[in-house]
């Protein structure tokens, strides 16, 4: 059989080196047949993971993937294609596909392919690489599974979980109509561990998890123990009346709850200036000014409590995205005031008269306060403590009112102490309301927000670590609407 894949391109770790990535990128440049703007990306990923359930490892895997993407714009028409093969025939094929699409659509300018190159070099780069993560062995992970499952088994409980270490590389190269070339190569690692411990009858559940770029920053045994403690603490839940409660949200719950502020799941990103969705169904806009046909944003207006600041700095070693245009530092909310929204380069050029763009990204830091978690509980006369949510859904885009359910432990706090486990609730609440009703903020901490791969490989500069750092918060009048049966 004809050698269809130059195996030597893949290192022992299953990823492509800078040199090999550049060789493929150069090959793509050579194979171009048209004059135009081209953008290539060559990414590779390796992952090793172990799943367990019913107190035994259920699957232990090792996966490698590669992706070659070609975008081109010829005579105004845009085209793109992708393959995971890197032999010359396949590279030629993927180029021809993109070129043919471009020609077919000539004179139809593709909206988001830049006419000129943006300059990446000024974007700071964060540390997103850990040797510990990449050198993690499957035997080490299996050891953790032994520990976690034995712990649960001794208590007649069932443990399930997941440990993953993975690494990704992406090289990209662009060429404009003047044959100016811009090239970059980045790499990142990710480690994650999550553990669920359940009662065999399905009557109680506890969860703990963390995703970081570095395994040294994840205490897997502590997570296993924590999920078990939570399971035990959530046994024999009582049913209490729905209503409004003073509520403490653990950091994981906070991250899930405020997520729709950055991604409400609709096709017109709510945070974008110059987009189409600036009517009453956008929480960041006052409405549309018909005379200039432009949305009037709430930038400069106070939208939440003044103790709330949410920002993203790529140089923040805990947050990490990779260098790319539009991914510089940004403060979305500064002391309660809306200060940042996203916009495209087209908008920057046309409306702001500058070559700038601000992209959406899924990692952010929400500043905390100085109340300890124990102090929060001790200072609560009567309230609820939420671990996590499930299936949160925005029901009113204008206010970001959401519904969803609590899971993996919900507790009643009485007289400054966690008094009993309670049945999970369906909630109806908006992060914008809740962040206006904050009583206390705890210390900000990273939570479980794994980078979904390999599907997002082409977007991984924007997502990179997807890390979220948030404090636990205590809010007043959090709205619980119905008791549910699930654990």
């Amino acid at each position, binding site marked *: 059989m004809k050698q269809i*894949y130059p195996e030597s391109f893949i290192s022992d770790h299953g990823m492509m080196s800078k040199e090999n990535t550049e060789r493929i990128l150069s090959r793509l440049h050579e194979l171009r047949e048209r004059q135009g703007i081209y953008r290539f990306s060559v990414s590779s990923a390796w992952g090793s993971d172990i799943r367990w359930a019913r107190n035994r490892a259920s699957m232990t895997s090792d996966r490698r993937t590669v992706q070659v993407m070609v975008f081109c714009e010829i005579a105004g028409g845009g085209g793109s294609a992708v393959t995971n093969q890197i032999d010359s025939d396949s590279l030629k094929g993927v180029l021809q596909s993109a070129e043919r699409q471009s020609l077919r659509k000539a004179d139809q300018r593709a909206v988001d392919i830049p006419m000129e190159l943006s300059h990446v070099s000024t974007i700071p780069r964060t540390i997103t690489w850990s040797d510990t993560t990449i050198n993690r062995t499957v*035997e080490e992970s299996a050891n953790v599974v032994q520990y976690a499952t034995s712990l649960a088994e001794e208590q007649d409980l069932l443990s399930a979980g997941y440990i993953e270490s993975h690494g990704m590389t992406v090289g990209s190269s662009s060429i404009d109509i003047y044959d100016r070339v811009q090239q970059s190569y980045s790499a990142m690692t990710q480690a994650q561990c999550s553990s669920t411990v359940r009662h065999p009858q399905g009557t109680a559940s506890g969860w703990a998890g963390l995703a970081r770029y570095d395994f040294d920053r994840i205490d897997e045994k502590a997570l296993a123990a924590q999920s078990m403690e939570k399971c035990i603490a959530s046994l024999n839940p009582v049913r209490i009346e729905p*209503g409004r409660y003073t509520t403490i949200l653990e950091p994981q719950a906070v991250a899930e709850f405020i997520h729709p502020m950055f991604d409400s799941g609709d096709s017109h990103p709510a945070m974008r200036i110059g987009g189409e969705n600036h009517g009453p169904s956008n929480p960041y806009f006052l409405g549309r000014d018909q005379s200039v046909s432009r949305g009037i944003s709430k930038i400069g207006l106070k939208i939440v409590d003044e103790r709330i600041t949410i920002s993203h700095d790529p140089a923040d070693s805990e947050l990490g995205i990779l260098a790319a245009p539009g991914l510089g530092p940004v403060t979305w909310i500064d002391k309660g005031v809306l200060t940042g929204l996203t916009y495209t380069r087209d908008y920057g050029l046309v409306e702001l008269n500058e070559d700038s763009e601000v992209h959406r990204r899924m990692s952010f830091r929400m500043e905390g306060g100085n109340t300890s978690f124990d102090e929060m509980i001790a200072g609560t006369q009567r309230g609820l403590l939420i671990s996590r949510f499930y299936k949160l859904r925005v029901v009113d885009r204008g206010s970001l009112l959401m519904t969803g359910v609590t899971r993996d432990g919900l507790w009643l706090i009485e007289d400054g102490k966690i008094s009993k486990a309670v049945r999970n609730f369906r909630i109806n609440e908006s992060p914008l309301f809740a962040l206006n009703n904050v009583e206390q903020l705890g210390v900000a901490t990273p939570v479980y927000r794994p980078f979904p791969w390999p599907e997002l490989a082409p977007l991984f500069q924007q997502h990179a670590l997807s890390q979220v750092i948030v404090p636990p918060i205590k809010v007043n009048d959090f709205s619980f609407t119905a008791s549910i049966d699930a654990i």
Partner: protein
Amino acid sequence: MLFSRRKFVQVGVNLTAGTALSKQLLASSTVHRAARHEIQDPIIKDIGDAALQVANSAGAVYADARLDHTYEYVVGGRPPEKESMSFGVRVLVDGYWGFASSPIWSKEEAARLARAAIRNARANTVGKARHAELAPLSGVGQELVGHWSTPIIDDPFTMSMEEIDDFFQGIATYAVNSCGVNPNFGATFLKQDKLFASTLGQYVTQQLYQATGNFKFSVQHKGAEVVTALDTTTTASAGFEYIRDQPLRDQIKELAEETRADMSLPVVPVDVGRYETVLDANTVTSLLSETIGVATELDRALGYEANAGGTSYIVNPLEMIGTLRIGSPELTVTANRNEVRGAATVQWDDEGVVPREFILVKDGLLNDMQTDREGAGFLEDVYKRQKMTSQSYGCSYAPNSGFVPLTHSANLKIKPGVGNESFESLVGQVDKGIAFKRSGVDMDYQQSSGLLFGQAFNVKNGKRISRIVGTALLFRTPELWNSITAIGGQASSKRIAKNTFKGQPARDASHSVTGVPIVLKEATVIDTLRKA
């Protein structure tokens, strides 16, 4: 093809301007393929065998190799053309599973993958013993060797892309000009050549096709806008003909008119309470998929998805099969992976099992679970009790060979009522109640309770008299299926493909679900816009 009105004009212009250009391109404008070996080529079998040999000599009790070559053409997608090859090797050593995959097809890589998979499995064998019993491959029609192709008429991957794109542009033009709607049309065509081989002598190859038409559009009426989509072109195992041969223009026109008629009903806030409720066939497919479909995946019920996609309210399938009441006696649900054009239809599943039809819910009682080979092995005692041989129903599935196969929902069918009732005729029998059309479902982590939300209507004296905003139906799963009082007839049934998610890393799978409208005696309707 994300048409805004503005872009649409450009497309129209381009269709004329591009004619001269497209002639020279036409001959070569099928979706590109670098030269590849046919999946049945013995050269590829040799690669799979190389992995099995290494796994076998390294001590695997069982091993399988999967290779697939997948092409996707997404009309209006970015990128529209995708190609991938993957190779996965799975081994069982002392009850523990190991897996390794990569995009490289070669004998050397086969050996590396087998060794990696063995190491992965062995990493766990130092600890506690694990028992895995794979159900035998002994069923009727269980061919171990063969080739099969999805029956199609027009292969989207040999047609010219202009023809496909022009087809969608033509429909979009019609939708704008003749139906007055704002279209957002597109489609996904998938072709997957795949090979499965195992240490049990299985060697099967398949060429699978899937087609999905997305005909989403917005309808404006009296200053309001509603987005809707055809539900007649959801994923099916078929070629381009699946979309081309449907009366799309009529369907779009009818749906636009239906939507406008619904929009002209007065809008009222919800009056929360318990009501007799009619659900249309579309809504019932969502419900079936998300409640019974997901909850009867055996791996979920056993807790294998406890840290990932969710578990099941069927907490003890060994005792509950045959006894647990899932719904009222009118409810019978069958499952299969072999119905013609079904989204989950294959000749062999990802363990080389020939799937067969089975009964999940019989006269309201839980009758069986959806299984792969290990799952069926786990249920051996149940099957013995019923004097059946344990055999996988063929629910093993992975999106490609880079993923480990898991138990995914088969195509599901609800048994229609004996009468001739339709959604409208069922609504016609309700004095005071609620009706839901085209609604989706959000379940809790155990599929035991959920929220049904979508287009809701007040029904009075057999007529839908107003639209309700900000409402949803809050339900407990067994309670809902137990409160069925009427079921639509055969003619009212609809088949719609649904997606479900599970696994770590997460992946999804589509399956066809055939539903009929139903009437619920009493259901709780809530105000989603009101807080406690």
